[in-house]
């Protein structure tokens, strides 16, 4: 019974992370990505990547709070799909948008320094995707966990990249900065929840579970 539920949850999770891609493809072929589909797809894919990164960061706190292991089970697929959308975002930028015109791409990067931050985030996410392979993970042993911590840096970079890309001024809070600030606020909360002392406080569910196990398991 329980495994059947898990199976359905797994299907749901895969569909959820694939949905934005399916939507983008359908929208492209039905001409509903505005009259400027490249720019729209670029912005949407970037938005999906940031959103999925933040969703993947909610997994551990939710597990600690509830003690339900399902939450951590889907963490890898959420992280990997965030990497995928970040890569798609990058590919849309260099190909349909810039037609692999690298001198022009470099010129654009020099004028829009937030792209450098985005590239840094992409590198981290690709490395994290590679080390998630089972064999690499085993080979890395304890270093794997240390490397995984770079995901926090990637999240900060991704939100900053977004905030600097929109039209407006982050410092004076004017222009289209509301959404990036909402993302930054959510990220701040999620990061605070991972500070060890805070983590201990919120580990209610996990403690209960451990206690239950101790008292129920006949030794």
């Amino acid at each position, binding site marked *: 019974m329980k495994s059947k539920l898990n199976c359905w949850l797994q299907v749901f999770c895969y569909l959820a992370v694939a949905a934005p891609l399916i939507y983008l493809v359908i929208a492209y072929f039905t001409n509903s990505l505005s009259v400027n589909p490249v720019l729209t797809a670029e912005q949407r894919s970037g938005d999906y990547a940031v959103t999925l990164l933040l969703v993947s960061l909610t997994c551990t706190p939710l597990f600690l709070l509830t003690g339900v292991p399902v939450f951590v089970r889907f963490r890898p697929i959420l992280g990997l799909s965030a990497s995928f959308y970040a890569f798609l975002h990058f590919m849309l930028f260099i190909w349909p948008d810039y037609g692999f015109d690298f001198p022009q791409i470099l010129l654009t990067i020099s004028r829009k320094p937030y792209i450098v931050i985005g590239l840094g985030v992409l590198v981290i996410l690709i490395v994290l995707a590679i080390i998630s392979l089972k064999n690499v993970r085993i080979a890395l042993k304890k270093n794997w966990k240390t490397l995984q911590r770079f995901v926090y840096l990637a999240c900060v970079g991704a939100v900053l990249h977004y905030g600097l890309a929109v039209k407006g001024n982050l410092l004076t809070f*004017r222009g289209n900065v509301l959404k990036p600030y909402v993302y930054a606020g959510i990220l701040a909360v999620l990061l605070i929840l991972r500070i060890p002392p805070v983590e201990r406080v919120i580990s209610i569910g996990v403690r209960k579970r451990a206690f239950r196990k101790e008292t129920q398991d006949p030794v």
Partner: protein
Amino acid sequence: MKSYSSNRVHSAEITPENVYRSRRDFIKLAGLATAGGILSACAPNSGQTSTPGTPQLTPTLFPDTLTPWDSVTHYNNYYEFTISKTDVADLAKNFTTSPWKVQVSGLCSNPQTFSMEQILAMFPSQERIYRMRCVEDWSMVIPWEGFPLNQLMNAVKPTSEAKYVAFIGTLDTAEMPGQAAYNYPWPYTEGLRMDEASHDLTILATGLYGKSLEPQCGAPIRLVIPWKYGYKSIKAVKKIILLAEQPSTFWNTLSPNNYGFYSNVSPRLDATEQRIGESFRRPTLDFNGYADQVATLYTGMDLQINS
């Protein structure tokens, strides 16, 4: 009053479609462009006899075709309604554009408030096909109907102290839901130097594709300055004020480092843009292709500093 309506250029006359169709040709053209721009002389000729001094779409290396009406009216930056370019048309459709008055005041000897009926009667409209370059790296080619701003300014007789012209948009939180967002300096404001405002290319547009302007495109009356980024071309103008000092402008107030007062297109060379309806980027032209007509306005000015 002279009318330019006889110079109507149909899209098919501007560009033989086969000329710009394929990506291969595009690349070849780009290669030749860097090799010396010799092709500029071969740009397709509209085959029309033009009145001397008549502003027309300057022939360019990469052929310009009219952006379809549907694209022009369904991809709009109009933050007074929403920051979503595709939602503007729907949100703006009930915007009250009549009755409408434009108040012209400030340093002039004959300040006046014009009703739209007066404006349309006093200043015969002409067709002007202009490139529109958005700061977001996309562009369109739009057949406006309108009249040079200098005609309206002559009617109010600016005094010699008038050095700048300020334009003020509509403040109407009831009809413009986007104005509920407090982190923008409403109403929209724009400004031009006197010589820019008096330039014959600068128009007040009241129509599009031979029809009256759609609300999402700035109805009933908007500014169009083809050599500056689109955001300088303020929509739904309510007030025009002649001033001695440079006025503050919407985007410059929001983010001075990114949006200068002048905002001429591509003062930095080698930018590119996505022409709506095309598959790949094309080079952005200096002054959006109007350098011959307007570059002299800025002689001796460093446009990197005065961006």
